[in-house]
């Protein structure tokens, strides 16, 4: 891995935090107190660390979802909808399948969430292969479709009495906590495990290799006899499944029942996480922990320094913009000028 690959995200984070500090000053508040309490809230205690990790968990899944699709040249903007489908399917299993022991019930609920999200992703893949519809647009539309589907379910078929929510999960389908008295649940361990599987899939299996070839150069992939349709189906199913697992872990680990808007945009945050993590499974984990820390520490920052939590959104947006604009960083560093010319030549060959 090249140094500049690691340097750009770091520089982006620092610049974003500095701009954030200016915004805090402009509001007449104290940036040192704000960032201090943010850091303390995120890492200052066992509770802080565990809440950082638990907030990172759904982001690891959605980040992996985007990264996996991106590696094979697909843009999955649909993790948000896949979360809802995953959550819905897990709840159906976790509430309505009764009398099974935990050792079977939990894997079953996880499997249901994965398949539910996976089919939702596969739908976008099918629309792309069959009708040439851009997955960017279909996944966005499917997000809202899924949100309203869940809203309908918890207000109708699976409503809990008169409240717009599902019934409580059975104890046998609830994630046990990893550390007592904290929010850290089994979902975090699952997310790390899944990240390792993603890495293994992409770099140590034949299909993963084919997926990466399609992502790097679709024409060459066709020429090499790779079945691109099959790869699109497979990758969209897997990416959707990863999105679904974000919903599963959030429901089984934190919420314990289905609400109509239980995801505050984890699917969209996943895009930023993957980008910051350079679409690499382990980079994604690190980036998700950073964003989890911002969320966990943000609460403390709001409480102690009176800085609105919304500042976290701004910092995230700035990080994304700076990382995405890496071309400018490279362009303005003279030492790299020659190498860029060579790279542009290569890019042209690819796009030609």
């Amino acid at each position, binding site marked *: 891995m090249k140094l500049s690959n690691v340097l750009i995200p770091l520089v982006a984070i620092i610049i974003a935090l500095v701009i954030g500090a200016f915004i805090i000053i402009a*509001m007449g508040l104290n940036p040192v107190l704000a960032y201090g309490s943010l850091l303390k809230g995120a890492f200052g205690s066992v509770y802080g660390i565990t809440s950082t990790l638990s907030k990172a968990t759904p982001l690891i899944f959605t980040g992996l979802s985007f990264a996996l699709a991106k590696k094979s040249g697909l843009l999955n*903007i649909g993790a948000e909808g896949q979360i809802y489908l995953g959550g819905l399917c897990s709840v159906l299993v976790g509430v309505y399948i009764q009398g099974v022991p935990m050792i079977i019930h939990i894997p079953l609920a996880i499997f249901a969430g994965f398949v539910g999200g996976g089919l939702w992703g596969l739908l976008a893949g099918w629309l792309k292969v069959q009708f040439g519809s*851009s997955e*960017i647009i279909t996944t966005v539309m499917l997000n809202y*479709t899924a949100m*309203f589907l869940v809203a309908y379910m918890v207000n109708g078929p699976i409503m809990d009495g008169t409240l717009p929510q599902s019934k409580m999960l059975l104890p046998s389908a609830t994630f046990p906590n990893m550390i007592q008295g904290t929010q850290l649940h089994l979902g975090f361990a699952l997310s790390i495990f899944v990240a390792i599987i993603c890495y293994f899939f992409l770099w140590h299996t034949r299909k993963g290799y084919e997926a990466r070839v399609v992502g790097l150069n679709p024409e060459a992939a066709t020429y090499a006899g790779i079945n691109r349709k099959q790869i699109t189906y497979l990758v969209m199913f897997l990416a959707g499944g990863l999105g679904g697992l974000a919903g599963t872990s959030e429901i089984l680990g934190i919420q314990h029942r289905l609400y109509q808007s239980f995801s505050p945009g984890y699917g969209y945050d996943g895009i930023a996480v993957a980008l910051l993590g350079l679409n690499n499974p382990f980079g994604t984990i690190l980036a998700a922990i950073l964003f989890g820390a911002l969320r966990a520490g943000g609460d403390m920052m709001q409480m102690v320094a009176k800085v609105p939590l919304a500042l976290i959104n*701004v910092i995230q*947006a700035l990080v994304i913009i700076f990382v995405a604009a890496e071309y400018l960083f490279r362009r303005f560093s003279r030492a790299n000028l020659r190498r860029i010319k060579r790279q542009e030549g290569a890019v042209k060959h690819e796009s030609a």
Partner: protein
Amino acid sequence: MSLPSIINTLASFLNTDIQTAVPIMLAATGMIFSEKAGLVNIGIEGVMILGAFTGVAASFFLGSAWLGLLIVIIIGGLLGLLFVFLVETARSDQVVVGMAFNLLGLGLTTIFNRAIFGLNTAPPKIDSFHPWHIPVLADIPYVGVAFFQHSSLTYLAFAVIPVVSFIVFKTNIGLKLRAVGEHPRAADTVGIKVVKVRYIAGMVSCMFGAVGGAYLSMSQLNFFTENMTAGRGFIALAAVIFGKYSPLGVMGAALLFGAGNAASYIIQATDSHIPGNLVLMIPYVLTIAALAGLVGKSVGPAASGKPYIKE
């Protein structure tokens, strides 16, 4: 239900439909420019919320809704400039930048709203776009309520439709726009400045998006609330596709989607057994169907989503 009361309900339904449709229609009309030029801006949601807040704040400080609107247009233009700078000049991914815009819009408006107007206080009194009763026409029974008692901004939004239609389909500018979106290299060969066209298209698009947002806070309501756009930028994207990238189509799509919304309000209010959430789902399902060609195929520009790199 008696006939007059049905007509009465229908008239107020149409009134609500139009008010719900206009913000979507404005943003979608603007997106025709950017989409045709090959830009996919899923950040219009963020532009809209920034427009909604800017309108209220500017009208509050300047004391005039029209001056407020002018500031909204300027801010929209600047956002467009930033968007195209990032995706063309800095060659960032359009989807990623769009996502960042949404986060930025939500974050900045919340922060500024609390900093300027405070938390948990009554919304400030601002000059907004009031319903304007068109003389004579507004007094026609039922029809008047439905069509002729809207704010000036509403009429303006509809007046813009034929103008945009003319520009996009009948003028040289429209031809350039489409050339840049379909085949930038060919456009470049015949002397069209691809990047410049995209800059202008992106700026115009965000101006419309910002005004669409301002419509929410200055005409539908007369105050700003956090996250008040609530996904309308994405519905606008759906309207562009469902309306097949034409202004008239976009208007039809926006009115149809607005009707769905208006219907879901009525359903919720009347405690009927039709699930409102399924009604709200319809625009998105229709758009997917349009993308798949089930209700007449909607095809986007060929060079969509990629920066233009000169040879």
